[in-house]
Structure formats: structure tokens, C-alpha cells
């Protein structure tokens, strides 16, 4: 396969990756957010696969495989299994900031990402030049999404999106070491278990996972 075609397909994956980040910011449904996360993880592994093929890197191949296994299959399965009801019962996620305002802020975030990474990216080969600004933009957007979501599960999904974005830039920069990727992927699973258990406990105790409204304890009679 031609190297320019690989560059092209990677850029396509990057563009779609950025779009899923925006869609995530604009989505109000928990189930939709989860499926966006899965798609974004698929795009991340596509980018890693393309780079593995182009650079003949076994490490990146491993990264792609682990990403698919953990983020496309394992984490969604675990979340659905432990919190299945929450996906269906809460159709509309509560947001601290309205969606149009968030989208304007997302424009600012992507502009900053492109501006900041320009001096580095312009010196680098094409994979980095594409992945670095997109990953950085995804990172900023996920941090913002984390701040404005007022419910535990969407917040956790933003955290996972943040993970995706960091890896999206990461696979392009550090294409020769896979160890930290493996650890990070395992860490993601562990975090999932912890958060799922925590959310379940909160849900059982208080009857909701709207953490934005957890002003007082139940014993004090606030609910």
C-alpha cells in the first residue's frame, strides 16, 4: 500500500475522531454517549493499526488490539452489565452549560489545540502532524465535558474519552513503547470496576446518579 494513502486514511480517522468528540459534547443521552465512545475507540485503534502497518511496529499493533479488546468490548460490556438500568432510565443527561455554549467553547479548544501544537507538528512527519492537534483538541474537549456533565456515568465516559484522546496523540508520538499502553488499558478496566461499583452504591443509597445534586446526606432529610 502506498504511504500517502496510509497518511490519507489516518487523516480520515483523525477527522472522524474529532467529530465524535464534538458529537459527544452535544449528545444528551447516556446510551448515545457510550456508543460514541466505542466508535471513537475504534477510530483510535484504526489510526494505531495504520501507523503499525506504515512503521512496521509490533507495539502499535498491540496497542490497537488492546484498545479494541478493552474499550470496544470489555468496558462497554462491564458498564452495561453493572449499570444496565441507568442507560435506559436516564434518557437526558443533565448539563451545567447549554449545548450551543459548549460547542462554542469546543471551537475555542480546537483552535487552541491547533495553535499550540503547530510549532511542534510542523516539524514532524505526517502522522504526528495530524494526530497531535486532533488528540490535544479531543483532550481539551473531554476535560470540558467532564466538567459540565452532572451525572456520574457521563462523567466517567468523558474520562474514558479523555483517555482515548491522550492515546490518539500518544500513538503518533511514542510509536516504539507499548508497555505504558498496556498498563494504561488495564488501569482503565480497574477504574471502570471501581467507578461502576461506586455509582451502583450511590444509586442504591440515593436512588439517582445525578451527582450534581448531591448536596447533603440522606440521613439529614434533604431527600
Amino acid at each position, binding site marked *: 500500500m*502506498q504511504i*500517502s*494513502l496510509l*497518511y*490519507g*486514511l489516518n*487523516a*480520515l480517522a*483523525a*477527522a*472522524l475522531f*474529532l*467529530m465524535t468528540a*464534538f*458529537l459527544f459534547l*452535544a449528545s444528551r443521552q447516556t446510551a448515545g454517549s457510550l456508543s460514541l465512545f466505542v466508535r471513537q475507540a475504534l477510530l483510535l485503534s484504526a489510526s494505531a493499526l495504520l501507523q503499525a502497518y506504515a512503521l512496521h511496529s509490533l507495539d502499535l499493533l498491540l496497542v490497537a488490539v488492546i484498545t479494541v479488546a478493552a474499550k470496544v468490548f470489555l468496558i462497554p460490556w462491564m458498564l452495561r452489565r453493572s449499570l444496565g438500568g441507568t442507560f435506559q432510565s436516564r434518557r437526558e443527561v443533565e448539563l451545567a452549560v447549554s*449545548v*450551543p455554549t459548549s*460547542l*462554542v467553547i*469546543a*471551537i475555542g479548544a*480546537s*483552535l487552541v489545540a*491547533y*495553535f499550540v501544537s*503547530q510549532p511542534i*507538528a510542523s516539524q514532524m512527519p*505526517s502522522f504526528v*502532524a*495530524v494526530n497531535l*492537534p*486532533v488528540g490535544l*483538541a479531543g483532550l481539551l474537549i473531554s476535560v470540558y465535558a467532564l466538567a459540565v456533565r452532572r451525572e456520574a456515568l457521563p462523567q466517567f465516559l468523558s474520562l474514558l474519552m479523555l483517555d482515548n484522546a491522550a492515546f490518539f496523540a500518544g500513538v503518533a508520538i511514542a510509536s516504539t513503547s507499548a508497555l505504558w499502553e498496556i498498563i494504561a488499558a488495564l488501569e482503565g478496566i480497574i477504574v471502570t470496576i471501581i467507578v461502576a461499583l461506586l455509582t451502583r452504591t450511590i444509586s442504591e443509597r440515593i436512588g439517582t446518579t445525578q451527582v450534581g445534586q448531591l448536596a447533603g446526606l440522606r440521613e439529614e432529610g434533604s431527600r
Partner: protein
Amino acid sequence: MASSLLVNLLQVLTVVLLAPLYKGTLAWLEETIQGKIAPSPLQPYYDLRKLFRKSQVVSTEASWIFRFAPYISFVVPIVVTLLIPVLTSFPLFFAFAGDMVGAGFILGLGGFFTALAAVDSANPYGAVGASRTRMVSLLVEPIFIIVFFTVSFVANSTIPYVVQQQWVQSSAAFFAPSHVLLAAAFVMIVLAENGRLPVDNPGGHFELAMIDESKNLEYSGPALALVKWAGQMKLMVLSLVFLNVLVTPLGLAASPTAPALATAIVLVSFKLLIFAVLIAAIETSLAKLRLFRISEFLGMTFVTAVVAMVAAIFHM
């Protein structure tokens, strides 16, 4: 000179005559995908023929604007057709008479007059529909402008015939993030501007929920035929801008000869068919948004377009 003018007229004829078929095929595809018994793709032609034979009723409240608006909205897509590449990859007689911004202005003129006419008819639903259409157009306008900015950053021009060659020079240019995002934003604009799902339901017959359709409620007979035909041409013109200028300027005639042009008509129809399948798939998988959620959909489109522009600037 003369041949280029003739080809330009052929382009107009292609759009005028094939637009109902395009809309009909789109409706047929959608209904078939949704498992309904679909009307024939030729149904729009039958509708137009029926409407042209009927007599026209005009409200006593209506002024000259109401009578003139159908003609204006019918002429507007034709004028735009003169400016864009429909069948050829070389510039034609009117190619440099106006650029994409000019084409946007001309389409805006048509929208302005149909909105005025809807208010003019004194039908309350007309005014509601007109104000909603204006709301959607108001939100679409900046996205159009950002798309044109992106195009001019990449191609150093906004003349459609110059722009069309830019994206297919290399696979890197074709798959560049700016191009992918731009194409995605333009698809969403095409949906919003033509009253398709998720912004408006083209099959809906409930006046209170209508956006695009309710402008035409007071029209009847030949005037309604013209308005409908204009809507079909607008959909086709925007699809052609998407296909021939922004994404796949392939299969176009390179010389003004009859065989080349005939092949181009077939290939362009084929591209339109594929685009119709894409629109049908999008429309089947999405539900209509509530009116105040439309701003979120178009905000999403705006962000996509802006990031396309940012990526175009920084990747140069």
C-alpha cells in the same frame, strides 16, 4: 463561445428535467428502506402535471409578492445552475459571472421571497413556517460562509470550477481532516436547507410541526407546481455542489462533445443516486429534532465547519 453557451443551457435543462426524478428516487429509496410500499420514482412528474392543469386560487389578502414569489423561487436554482459545474470539468460561459458566495446570495434571495409570500398570504401557518425557515436559514448562513472561507483558504478561489480540482490532486488532499470535516458539514447543510430530517420531516402533514412545507400551504395549481419544482431543483443543485465541487469532481465531461456530455449525464446521475442512498440512510436512522434542538444540530455543523477551516489553515 457558442458551444460553451449551449453546454451551459444543457446543464440547466439537465437540472430542470432531472430534479423531480431525483426527489422521487430519494422518496422511493426512503420508503423502500423503511419497508413501506413506495410511490414510483416518477411520482413528482405526475404531481407536477396534475398541478399545472388545475386552476389557481389566490387569497384576497395577498399582494403581488404572493403572485411573483413562485416565479422567483423557480428561477433562482436555474441561475445558480449556470454558475456551478453540473456536467463539465472546464469552465462554461457564465462560470466567472459569480462565485460560490454569489450563488449563496442568489439562493438566499429565493428564500427571502418565499418567506415574504408565506407571510403575505395571511395564513397563520404560513407566517409560522416562514419564521421557522428563517430561523434555520439564519443558523445555516454562517456555516455556508465558513465553508466558503475554508474553500478559499485551500483553493485560493471561490469560483466552483477552480475549487473542484483541488481536493482530488492527491489522496492526502482528499483525506485531509479539513476536507472530511468540510464534507460532513456540507451534508448537514444540505439536510437543513432542504427541510430534510433531522431538521424537518419532508413527509409530515401536520401544520404545527412543519417548517419547510408550510411556506407553500396557500399555493395551489401551477404556482404550487412551480414552488415544488423549485424545491426539487434546490435539493439537486446543492447535492451537485457537494458532489461536483467539494467531494467527487469525477466523471465530468472534459470536452464539449456529445458523447462526452452524454457519458457525463449518466455518471452524474449515478453519483446523485449514491448520494440519495446516503441521505436516505441518514434520514431513516434519525428522528426529527424538536424545534429548539435544531440550533444544537446546526451548532454542531458550525463547529465542524470552523474546525475544518482551522485545520485547513494550520496544515498549509
